């Protein structure tokens, strides 16, 4: 900005600069105010409140009662919560790698010049925009033990005693994992496709001239050039998967016998069905800690396999 730099006569201009700065700051606070107010009331203060609540017993009928770390101690001893943690981790490990692997395959196939590309892309992507509640309902119907589409198809190809899926303690969680892979694959596919399109074509051509096989090109060009996309997809998918709720609520209500009870579903039950706000808040903080640690670890280890350039 055009401000005079004459030192001896700088008084008046300096005052003008200060006035300008103050005006800019005032304007800035004006621009910020609506969002900041909402952010403070509905995000920032609730985060702090949630931490305080997790140190209390509070059923919303009587005043909250300070109990120190008792809720966290209870979590450590709570075998249902151990089950819930294990279910959630199994869900994350079952969903993310398969979903990402399939997404990469589809993205590589769609990165070729083939007829109907837009149609295929739309087909894989449709589940991503669909409401999880609505598609969880149709999957509940597909997984129906006696009349479901899946078991009907299994009968037709000669499987005589197919699993009873959602009503089986063994198969309910895999069923929810299958449904979730179906729903999420398109999201990763789109990101991989964008990543693939930014790999410079001349690298492949040079490798071809050097006699590299298509597997060599995949291994030594595609994988490293795509690693920053892969890292991004991995981090986002893991964070999202830890928060699984809708499917478990609609398809199984966490059952049978807690077989599909996830952290968020358990938080929902304790907070809004049993009204144990303190205990539920403690679980929410454990969820946050888990996500935080896993994300930090991924960032720490990215240097060993992610190439940026």
């Amino acid at each position, binding site marked *: 900005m055009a401000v005079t730099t004459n030192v001896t006569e700088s008084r008046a201009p300096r005052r003008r600069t200060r006035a300008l700065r103050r005006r800019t*700051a005032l304007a800035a606070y004006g621009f910020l105010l609506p969002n900041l107010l909402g952010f403070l009331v509905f995000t920032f203060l609730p*985060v702090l409140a949630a931490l305080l*609540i997790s140190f209390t017993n509070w059923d919303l009928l009587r005043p909250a009662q300070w109990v120190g770390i008792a809720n966290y101690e209870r979590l450590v001893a709570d075998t249902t919560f151990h089950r819930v943690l294990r279910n959630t981790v199994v869900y994350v490990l079952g969903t993310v790698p398969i979903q990402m692997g399939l997404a990469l395959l589809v993205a590589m196939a769609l990165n070729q010049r083939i007829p109907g590309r837009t*149609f295929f892309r739309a087909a894989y992507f449709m589940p*991503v925009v*669909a409401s999880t509640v609505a598609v969880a*309902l149709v999957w509940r119907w597909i997984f129906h033990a006696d009349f479901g589409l899946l078991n009907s198809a299994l009968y037709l190809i000669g499987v005589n005693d197919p699993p009873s899926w959602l009503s089986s303690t063994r198969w309910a969680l895999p069923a929810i994992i299958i449904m979730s892979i179906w729903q999420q694959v398109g999201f990763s596919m789109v990101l991989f496709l964008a990543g693939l399109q930014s790999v410079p074509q001349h690298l492949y051509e040079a490798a071809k001239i050097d006699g590299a096989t298509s597997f060599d090109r995949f291994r030594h060009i595609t994988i490293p050039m795509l690693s920053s996309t892969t890292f991004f997809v991995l981090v986002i998918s893991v964070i*999202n998967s830890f928060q699984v709720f809708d499917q478990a609520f609609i398809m199984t209500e966490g059952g049978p016998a807690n077989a599909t009870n996830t952290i968020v579903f358990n938080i929902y039950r304790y907070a809004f069905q049993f009204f144990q706000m303190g205990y539920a808040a403690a679980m929410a903080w454990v969820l946050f800690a888990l996500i935080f640690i896993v994300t930090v670890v991924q960032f720490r280890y990215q240097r060993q396999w992610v190439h940026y350039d």
Partner: protein
Amino acid sequence: MFGYSLGNVLLAAFLVPTAILMLMPFVWMLSTSLKSAGEVFQYPPNFLPNPLRWDNYTRLFEVLPFARFFFNSVVVASAVTILAVATSAMAAYAFARLRFPGRDTLFIGYLATLMIPAQVVIIPNFILLRNLGWIDSYQALILPAAFSAFGTFLLRQNFLTIPGELEDAAVVDGATHWQIFTRVILPLSGPALSALAIFTFLFNWNSFLYPLVVTNSTAMSTLTVGLNTLQGQYNTAWTLLMAGSVLALVPVLTVFLFAQRYFIKGITLTGIGGR
């Protein structure tokens, strides 16, 4: 160009069956929603009901106020989108373009909360709304979702890429910050703004846990919560459940099919939309 090379045959052998598998649940949903109660349990299953029973849809509106659910979802998702995009854009302008004391500290505060899952704040928000007497109201459905730290972050990053010369010219002409914001910055940020709008709308249209917690009457239910109520009352009435699901999907899928490019661009731009 599209010869029957071995490569193309392999590609088709992979893409065609998997694409059919991806679409199957939607087809099955639509097909079931048009069947009679008896036809649903036929073996082997048929995909083409005969005759088409459209009355499942009329019944849907008789057993529960689905028109009201629809209306609520439209109101909530639209209001949240307008508020979130407008307030995020304003805040992002301040963060990206104006100097003021405390800017960096405040921005770090925004960033830090991005990592905190929504489930952490849902309990205090529920208690707050309860104390305000707002449970089961449009305010409760709209306001807590309408001030997006993520949107602010996304738009700030976008505004930072706009060259400063354009603003300098406007400043020389004596433009106010509001004029610079509305006539220089916003018109140059179309793709980022529309991506944020599309995904805010989509996210809130599909949102379930939050409206489930802050509403308790049928009259204030959104479509997703209404579907859950339907499932509670007609647990195995598959024709009715599928008709309701189709109803919840049609608006979003229609918009998607016509605006596919913007969805795809939006995802690659923002990395949002995943679950």
